[in-house]
């Protein structure tokens, strides 16, 4: 096969994958509004994805806050604008860093888990067993996870934002001895609902993308344990890529609907 043929096959494969995932996602949206709604399963997954990811979010957010604070101080010190450190850090965290990093971390932790879990169920006939028990496996395993991650993502993002601001404060307090009250006031001087709400809600889309891609790869797993590993890895890679690509579009949309955010 020539290089051109291989490139062509690769592009066609990408289109095929994109179409299949889009169709899977559209089916999930359709199924989500039809009974049965599986609230117990959704809550169980919110707990699994949300509560169990919380320590990762808090620790990562804190570390990111510390690092961002150190970088921001190094830059703003040159202009004698140290007083702007809390506000600069809070804007960076809430508008972009928090949602994006939370999305990527969840893609790694939860996306891999969904791909591997559903993939393992596929190769061990557990999905067939669900169907044989008159349970719609797509809805029971896929739709519930998709909805749960759409609920958990914004909550995890708020946690990450909060931990980041705390980390920023810890770094700043260590250097300048700034009080928590002063830091908090300065952090939120320039933050409005237009900064917080759209940026946090865009992670609902991240949650949807991660869960749809990972569930799709889980449901289409073949070739035994090797296939399960591949589904897990591809879940992380594909959902991370989609998060970054969709973030570009979502930021553009936010700027369109909230022009004050781009100012």
């Amino acid at each position, binding site marked *: 096969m020539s290089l051109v043929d291989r490139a062509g096959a690769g592009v066609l494969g990408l289109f095929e994958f994109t179409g299949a995932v889009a169709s899977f996602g559209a089916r999930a949206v359709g199924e989500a509004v039809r009974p049965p709604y599986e609230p117990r399963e959704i809550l169980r997954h919110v707990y699994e994805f949300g509560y169990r990811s919380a320590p990762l979010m808090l620790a990562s957010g804190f570390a990111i806050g510390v690092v961002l604070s150190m970088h921001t101080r190094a830059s703003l010190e040159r202009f004698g604008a140290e007083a702007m450190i809390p506000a600069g850090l809070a804007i960076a965290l809430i508008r972009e860093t928090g949602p994006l990093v939370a999305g990527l971390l969840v893609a790694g932790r939860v996306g891999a888990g969904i791909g591997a879990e559903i993939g393992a169920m596929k190769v*061990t*006939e*557990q999905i*067939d*067993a669900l*169907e*044989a*028990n*008159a*349970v719609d496996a797509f809805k029971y395993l896929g739709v519930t996870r998709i909805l749960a991650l759409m609920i958990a993502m914004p909550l995890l993002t708020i946690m990450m934002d909060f931990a980041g601001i705390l980390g920023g404060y810890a770094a700043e307090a260590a250097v300048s001895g700034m009080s928590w009250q002063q830091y908090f006031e300065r952090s939120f001087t320039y933050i409005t609902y237009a900064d917080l709400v759209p940026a946090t809600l865009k992670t609902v889309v991240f949650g949807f993308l991660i869960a749809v891609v990972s569930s799709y790869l889980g449901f289409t797993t073949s070739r035994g344990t090797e296939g399960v590993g591949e589904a897990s890895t591809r879940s992380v890679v594909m959902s991370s890529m989609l998060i970054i690509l969709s973030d570009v579009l979502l930021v553009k949309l936010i700027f369109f609907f909230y022009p004050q955010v781009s100012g």
Partner: protein
Amino acid sequence: MSAVRFDHVCKAFGTQTVLDDISFEVPAGRAFCLLGRSGTGKSVTLRHIVGLVRPDSGQVFVADKDITGLTGRELASVRKQMGFLFQNAALFDSMSVGDNVAFPMRRHTDWSDGDIRARAAQKLADVGLEQEFDKMPADLSGGMKKRAGLARAMALDPSILLVDEPSAGLDPITAGEIDDLLVTTKQSGTTLVVVTHNIPSARVIGDEFGLLHAGRLLATGTIEALDASGEPMVQAFMRSHGGG
């Protein structure tokens, strides 16, 4: 009344024909054993009955109802009449053994949780696993998994029980215990469709038999009829597996 009927069913995966014009009938309350070597389409036949696989042509009837084109709730309602014991039991590994057995009851009945737990415990006791209610599937041996799978398959007292290779991978004593459980199930009036390549086990369980080879049903009838068959492949199979 027939519990299961195949009418000229054909199925291929890609270029490989797995079932080629298969027709047979299982009367209600009888045990039908589908025999054959590995890879001859026995499990695919079983999956047609529960609608996990659809035929390319021909029809599959369950309780005289054509299920070939059924989807969604209609198919689910047919599936509720059946229990399926998978070859590797296919227990849900995120649930305890008791919850596995309780799962069909939680999904399809409005019984109270206490009732469901009691019934699940009884089903596990029926297969000798009353002590394993809270254990996870990973903590069970192969034979115990199979018995737990049987308890789950019997959770809603189905009228038809589908069993895929009940003795595969089990020691002779455990395999014998599973066979005895299936015979007890048959005696309670449940129709059995059992896929196996184990002739001694089939002789214990079955009333009617079919031998599948290369996608074709070479012979059907009683075990005596198969033993007396003039078909060379049937003779070879029955002789090589302890037949008469």
